[in-house]
């Protein structure tokens, strides 16, 4: 019986394969037995799949996940840069998770099968789309698409149609709470409204007066028809101007009622006020049917108590419908809730961005700082392991990778060649490897074609395989462990659990247990961020080297260590010490405020040419990154965020630190100008050693 029920789903999965791929790959779809078995999940099969998945996750030793997004960086400078401190890096990840949408979510539970001495994996590929399912007061949902990412998805034949037409929607926990509150409030308001609001409507326009009169007559006829029997025509299509208004006698909750169709909301209000004024026993009821089409009735009630009952019933029903709607709108979040409540070990590959997406889409808005994020994520997902960390940090695994790249696909082919080519050869070397089977829709399979498409479900499967193999190399004997043993608490893995790459390029690792990006543990941070100045909107043709020359001419040849481009419109200048940062900003301000030969001939004038050049310290960089605006050029971003004002005279928020030193500094700066006037271009005195 159960088996029979499963059958229809299988061809469905195939049809996705073939629709996703273009005509070229239809030949591979024909030989579908050999294609990688992957459970595609959309709106239509979500509920049934979820039920099966519950059991699979419960039984699993770990669950691998992977996400496909519509983009990664909302502006080129939002990419991970060399000079990003960990808090800035967090802000960049936060920005990415907030702006882009998740379109595919791969979930792959792995269970050790002691009978066959192999892992059984269940790769699921969920199509996700943030469809707005709730109609009442929806916060307009928007997401960003990065053109290169969309191209990338298209290259791997991502099926956008399935995603947008059939993708599963979701609500985060926060959104669900808000929706419930809103429903509660609407419900409350309604109660107030019904008390006295109806009489408030004044009929000012002639059209309204006429309409009200006509409705009064019509309702009167209908009511007397009801009361005195007689065969009143139950349907009375409207006569004038061919409008679509019509009424029909129906039964509403066992009471005779007149169903109103094709009236505008204003007309319905007028009808309501007519009822309030002239008909004590007729009640206006507005309700939504199953398909959320709104329906309007005028219902006849027998007595005052009957009327109250009816009103109460109608209200209760509306509330129930609303609650049901919220429940069904939760959608894909049920999968996340399942993972969270089962407290399973979550495995991802370079997955900090993935986890941030999970948080922002399914829990609530991302916290403002990395520390707060860490404090909160732990209560939802207590055990997360990143295979990228495992491969790079463990010396033995690192060596085994033979210096090949630790990207997902290359790690998979170097660690799990037996799975990639699904060779069950008698090669003894391959024999020691962990055996992994795939089971989809109760059909177990250990043979498939190599080279799965770039889909979240397949990527999650690869990640899980890498993890299983890595555990095996770490000396983890699955045969010895019983089901009850929690992999997450194993001491061999302890060092790696809950540590994620905040920035892979920089090697910054965030520790989800303590809440510090403990870069010190793994790699010493080499930058002193207070020595950095940000310059933007300088003449576009200036290159980093020329900027360095200009500054060195002013502050001495050793003053600047290096200059890096953020993008074409902005640079980081890395000074020797933080005093120089302050000197530079002050001098810039002075040169801008004074016009005359000094500012024209000064070496810095080359940078300040055009009069729009902005400069600020590292604090401002963080502020710029924390803005939700994303302009493509960094200079536009800085201007829009309004950091400009900080470098202008009298920056209010800098007075605290600088009050006492202001005098000295301004002297120093004016000394500089004097010195320059006295033809000493290289002003050594101005650069504290």
């Amino acid at each position: 019986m159960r088996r029979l029920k499963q059958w229809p789903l299988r061809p469905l999965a195939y049809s996705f394969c073939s629709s996703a791929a273009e005509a070229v790959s239809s030949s591979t779809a024909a030989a579908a037995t050999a294609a990688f078995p992957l459970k595609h999940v959309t709106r239509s099969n979500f509920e049934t799949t979820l039920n099966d998945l519950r059991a699979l996750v419960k039984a699993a030793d770990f669950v691998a996940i992977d996400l496909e997004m519509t983009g990664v960086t909302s502006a080129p400078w939002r990419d991970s840069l060399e000079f990003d401190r960990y808090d800035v890096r967090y802000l960049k990840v936060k920005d990415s998770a907030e702006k882009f949408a998740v379109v595919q979510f791969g979930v792959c539970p792995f269970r050790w099968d002691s009978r066959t001495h192999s892992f059984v994996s269940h790769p699921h590929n969920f199509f996700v789309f943030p469809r707005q399912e709730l109609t009442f007061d929806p916060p307009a949902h928007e997401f960003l698409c990065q053109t290169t990412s969309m191209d990338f998805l298209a290259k791997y034949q991502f099926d956008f149609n399935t995603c947008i037409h059939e993708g599963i929607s979701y609500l985060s926990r926060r959104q669900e709470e808000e929706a419930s509150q809103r429903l509660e409030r609407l419900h409350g308001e309604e109660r107030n409204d019904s008390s006295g609001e109806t009489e408030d409507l004044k009929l000012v326009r002639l059209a309204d007066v006429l309409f009200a009169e006509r409705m009064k007559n019509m309702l009167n006829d209908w009511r007397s028809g009801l009361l005195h029997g007689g065969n009143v025509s139950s349907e009375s299509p409207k006569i004038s101007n061919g409008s679509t208004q019509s009424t029909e006698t129906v039964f509403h909750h066992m009471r005779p009622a007149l169903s109103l169709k094709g009236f505008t909301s204003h007309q319905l209000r007028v009808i309501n006020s007519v009822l309030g004024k002239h008909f004590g026993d007729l009640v206006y009821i507005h309700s939504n049917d199953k398909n959320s089409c709104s329906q309007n009735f005028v219902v006849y009630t027998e007595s005052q108590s009957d009327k109250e009952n009816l009103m109460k019933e109608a209200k209760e029903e509306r509330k129930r419908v609303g609650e049901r709607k919220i429940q069904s709108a939760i959608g894909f979040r049920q999968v996340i809730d399942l993972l969270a409540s089962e407290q399973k070990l979550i495995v991802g590959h370079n997955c900090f961005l993935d986890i941030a997406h999970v948080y922002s889409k399914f829990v609530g808005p991302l916290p403002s700082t990395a520390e707060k994020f860490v404090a909160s994520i732990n209560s939802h997902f207590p055990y997360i392991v990143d295979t990228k960390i495992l491969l790079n940090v463990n010396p033995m695994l690192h060596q085994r990778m033979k210096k090949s790249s630790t990207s997902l696909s290359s790690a998979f082919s170097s660690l799990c060649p037996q799975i990639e080519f699904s060779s069950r050869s008698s090669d003894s070397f391959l024999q020691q490897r962990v055996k992994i089977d795939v089971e989809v829709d109760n059909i177990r399979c250990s043979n498939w074609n190599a080279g799965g498409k770039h889909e979240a479900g397949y990527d999650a499967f690869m990640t899980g395989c890498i993890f299983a193999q890595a555990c095996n190399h770490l000396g983890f004997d699955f045969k010895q462990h019983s089901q009850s043993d929690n992999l997450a608490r194993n001491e061999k893995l302890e060092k790696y659990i809950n540590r994620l790459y905040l920035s892979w390029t920089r090697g910054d690792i965030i520790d989800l247990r303590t809440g510090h990006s403990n870069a010190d543990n793994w790699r010493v941070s080499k930058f002193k961020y207070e020595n950095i100045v940000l310059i933007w909107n300088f003449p576009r043709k200036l290159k980093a080297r020329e900027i360095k020359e200009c500054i060195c001419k002013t502050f001495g040849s050793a003053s600047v260590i290096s200059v890096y481009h953020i993008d074409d419109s902005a640079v980081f200048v890395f000074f020797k010490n933080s005093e120089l940062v302050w000197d530079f900003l002050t001098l810039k301000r002075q040169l801008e405020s004074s016009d005359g030969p000094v500012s024209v001939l000064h070496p810095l004038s080359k940078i300040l040419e055009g009069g729009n050049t902005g400069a600020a310290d590292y604090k401002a960089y963080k502020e710029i990154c924390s803005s939700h605006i994303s302009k493509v050029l960094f200079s536009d971003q800085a201007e829009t965020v309004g950091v400009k004002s900080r470098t202008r005279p009298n920056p209010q928020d800098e007075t605290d630190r600088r009050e006492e030193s202001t005098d000295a500094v301004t002297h120093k700066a004016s000394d500089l100008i004097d010195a320059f006037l006295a033809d000493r271009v290289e002003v050594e005195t101005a650069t504290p050693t």
Partner: protein
Amino acid sequence: MQRRFLSSISGTAGNSKTLNQGRWSVKQVKKSNFHVTLDEIRTSIESSDFIALSLQNTGSYAAAWHRVSAIDTPQTSYLKAKYAAERYQIFQFALCPFSLQGSKLTVHPYNFHLFPRDELKCGMPSYSFSCQASRLTSMAREGFDFNTCIYEGISYLSRAQESASKYLSGNPILANPITVSSSPASVADTVFVGRIRSRVKNWRQSCIDSGSKTGDDDLVSSLRRLVLGSEQYGSRLCLTIDVCSERQVQLILEMLTEFSEDVVPLLVASKSRGTQAVRTVFMSSKEDKDLFKREIQDLENKENRRVRGFREVIDLISSSQKPVISQNYLSDLTSIHAKFLGPLPANVDDFSSSLSSAFPNVVDLSQFMKEISPLSNISNLPAAMSSLNRFFAPVDVEVANQGCPVKLSENYQSHGQNAVMISQLFAKLSAIQKSDLSTVQSNEDSQDLASDEHTSFVISKNTGNENVKVWSKNSRRVSSENLVFIWGFAKKLTAAKLKNFLQKSHPVFTQEFDVKYLDRSCAIVVFWESGPSETFLSAVNNEEQLSGSLREMVAEGLRAAGYETYKRACRLGFWEADLAESLDKTLDSSDTEHDSDTKPSEINWSNDLAINFDEL
């Protein structure tokens, strides 16, 4: 077979059910058939009198108040449209060149699938774009094929982007002629120029020599080439001078004007940006020089054509100078400007003039519609069409570009119907208008129609004082000075209740006034006379004057601001989800930025400017 069936339907539908929402066969254009179709499109545009267009974007407005409404001046309407045009992407561009002869409408409908492809890997045509989830969902419901759009959409570059991309293609480009000499030369500059000049002189001399002395043997000439660093560019001799800065490029180009007779400078762009080297090419004669310049220009044009993509069509429309008919003037034309011409200017006047240089005649269909049938809402085309039923104005539609070379399902052909309907509606309106005027002017052909009658609907700038049309149904003009924005109510009130509260709160509300919500956070108070708005604003912002229930409301968080604040919020780009938050931010920022354009001295605005008078 099926195709024949379809086309016969469209043929007959034109005769019998003129106003029916016909299903015309619209030619679908994608990446694969774009270049072959281009000539056909050119012919269609040339043979037509008007061009109707209709766009499908990935979104329209992110929050209720971002929508252009009756309270907007041309400037704020424009800023709203600009904000949307910059963020959203055009997925479909339906184009319908048509001509009108009597009651016969000949249409050439096309529908282009667009997708911005970052082919040069430099963030052009766009780095990213926004999608409104609800918009995509409704597009999906209409059967939009996202895969076709993303896999096979035609890319493009705007005019501004194309000129910027010149440097990225890697081909050498002709240097622009020097107009004015730059800043005074320093000693280093003089030395540099002197060195390069002598190098160029020697090289040029050797070129002249080798030209005259043909008797040189190969060895000698190649040795000479080696010594002088001379190379060959195609069949011509050239010299490459490496440069370190744009300043040096400038200096070299200035110096080279001395040799302009027979030396042509080319700029070699570096991979990252800027110029890497200047290449001087020796010309054997004046004819040779012209030929060479043409060659380079052709090469550039070919490359440009490749990267330009769909913009070719926009250029065709623009150069044809035919009147363009648009349903949503502001949103369509700002999108077209942003994607295909260049970045949108900061104010509406600059936009109008920039736009009119590309499209001198734009007919705003909604404006035209309003003249004929003031109560109709144009946003729903079929409804607008049927509202004209009461006029007798038959229009026969003939689809001129029958038959699609690409076999498409019926579903496909439904895309791009809007542009046909716009042309149909336009034809109908023209016919109605003509019958009204027929007593005055007898027969006139459609050509005249295009030139004379419609000029009144073509968007033009009139000066006028700053009035705002409030409430769509019983529209009344009020000066923007009489509007007050209020927000920060303690609890959610209906407009009627809020009005009640206000009436009790302050004496100014004894006069006639009206209250409407603009979004869930903010309401607008309209006074029908001037004066009370200022009194009220100063009362709210002045603690001593506060008393009674108004004081209570202010204590609970009520804030108020005049129209200036709203305009500033739009200008500063505070597009928050709630208008209240935007106004709060604007009030906060006003202290730091007291700049000149806080008070735009006068806003030129035409009474006819397109505003979608949607109900608030």
